[in-house]
């Protein structure tokens, strides 16, 4: 082998080795969560950590799901699912209509609207928490699914409109016009031609909204203060504090249960989401 080739080989080995290190660093906490969740509680409180579940048990999951804890998991799961699914559906519908308005029509105030969407994304939720709480209180919407859903819809709308706009822009209107020449009405042309082409964009945007709503903690903490109205992130924290000596194995089981749907969705649509993010942030 020529020296140049030897050197290239050597570098490629070095890069691959660094890649493995990067992989291990990013994966280890996730692995450690799952590993701990599968170990009996007495084992994780030993002098030496168990690096793999050599005494595999599902007791922690059983305890979290059906056990008699002060913070039951299933009602929190129900609340989280209800709020998240409602948020996704409403936000997608509203964002879709708004995206159509700003891409398919030219009207006065259009630029101002898009600008507002951009600026709203920068207002920190922490700053608004007090007034959001008081406004919801005034409308009797504290501790209700409707109240939290409303807040989440408003939180995700700017970003969903922003991304969907990119997707709608990507569908050439000539396609619709061609269908109209072939005898479709405007509405028919839209539903038969444009809408199917938008489906991937709607899925990616929907998943984004799902993840946002599923993970949100601060607003849920403030709006859903009654124990039976908790969502999963609030549950996770309360669960951690409710027990006298922290039951880490159970908390890790709960964390795993909470993270699984997000990770699955993320793996499915990440490519589209990254390109959507780049397009939304850079190109529009």
């Amino acid at each position, binding site marked *: 082998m020529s020296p140049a080739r030897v050197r290239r080989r050597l570098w490629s080995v070095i890069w691959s080795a660094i890649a493995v290190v*990067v*992989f291990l660093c990013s994966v280890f*906490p996730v692995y450690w969560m799952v590993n701990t969740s599968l170990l009996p509680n007495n084992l994780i409180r030993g002098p030496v950590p168990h690096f793999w579940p050599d005494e595999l048990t599902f007791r922690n999951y059983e305890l979290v799901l059906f056990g008699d804890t002060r913070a039951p998991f299933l009602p929190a799961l129900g609340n989280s699912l209800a709020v998240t699914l409602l948020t996704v559906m409403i936000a997608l519908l509203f964002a879709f209509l708004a995206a159509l308005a700003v891409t398919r029509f030219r009207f006065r105030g259009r630029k101002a609207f898009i600008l507002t969407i951009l600026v709203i994304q920068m207002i920190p939720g922490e*700053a608004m*928490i*007090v007034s959001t709480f008081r406004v919801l209180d005034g409308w009797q919407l504290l501790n209700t699914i409707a109240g939290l859903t409303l807040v989440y819809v*408003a939180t995700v*709308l700017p970003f969903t409109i922003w991304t969907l706009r990119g997707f709608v822009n990507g569908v050439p209107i000539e396609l619709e016009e061609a269908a109209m020449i072939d005898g479709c009405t405007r509405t028919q042309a839209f539903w038969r031609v444009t809408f199917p082409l938008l489906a991937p964009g709607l899925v990616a945007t929907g998943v984004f909204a799902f993840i946002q709503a599923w993970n949100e903690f601060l607003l849920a903490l403030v709006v859903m203060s009654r124990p039976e109205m908790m969502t999963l992130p609030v549950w996770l924290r309360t669960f951690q504090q409710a027990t006298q000596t922290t039951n880490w194995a159970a908390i*890790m089981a709960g964390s795993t249960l909470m993270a699984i749907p997000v990770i699955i969705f993320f793996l499915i649509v990440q490519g589209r989401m990254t390109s959507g993010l780049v397009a939304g942030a850079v190109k529009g």
Partner: protein
Amino acid sequence: MALAPTAVGTRRRRSGALAPAMLLVPTGIVLLAIIGWPLVQLIIISFQEYGRAQVFGRPPEWVGLQNYIDVLGDSFFWAVLGRSILFAAVNVVLTMLLGTLVALLMMRLHKFFRLLVSVGLLLAWAMPALTAVVVWGWMFDTQYGVINYVLSQVPGVDLIGHSWLIEPLSFFGVATMIITWQSVPFVAFTVYAGLTQVPDEVLEAAQLDGAGAVNRFRLIVFPYLKSIFVVITILQIIWDLRVFTQIYALQGIGGIREQTSTIGVYIFQTSLGTGDFGTGGAIAVILVIIMMTISIYYVKKSIQEETL
């Protein structure tokens, strides 16, 4: 943009402004009710004496700029703000640096190893922030944490029983690890997506001209990706400056509140913790103003680059 100008003219004249207005009504109502109205309320409270008594129905009293004067004259506020800015700065620099390095690494990897790195990054990115804090908190646990155990295997080191969260400096060290771990993937993926757009011919030509790796990055790649870098840096600044969940949850696991609060947590404690909504409102308005000042550049840039 996609429409031929004539088609635009005729169709849009026919439909008038009614159709887009109808399409925008739902979004408009939600945003006005949940963003606009609370924002107005926030500004109003910040000029009022608004405490627990007012929550239970006593009419609030106007105090003019008093809340702002109190906040700006409070050395604790400045300490928290300074701490937040310093913390954000460290995190932004670390995240951008590591993210860019990982993206550059991905460019050099063969398919399998690139996939490996991507999967790892995705898992870190997809973790809910709160779950991440809980998991890292467990890894750093004083007695049974894997990190204390592994470090103690090094000869001469004994960290069993060492508490990482009690000292403010190491508390923020742990927080930085968690936040960087979760935000490097976003930067890495975005920069990587940008890097794949840089034309190979230019890079090859530069290499033939004798430009080293550092110069190639500085003179060709960086200018090419400048707009991406600007956007993600500003997003990182905003996200790291308003960090709440990680700090709040980490304090719950074992940090001292007074010494570790960032501005987001401080607003939360002042308003909902102590019930001083007026002062909390004033701090919030100040934070919004800071954010707006930072993001003006981003907004301007977006407008320039867009036909909108």
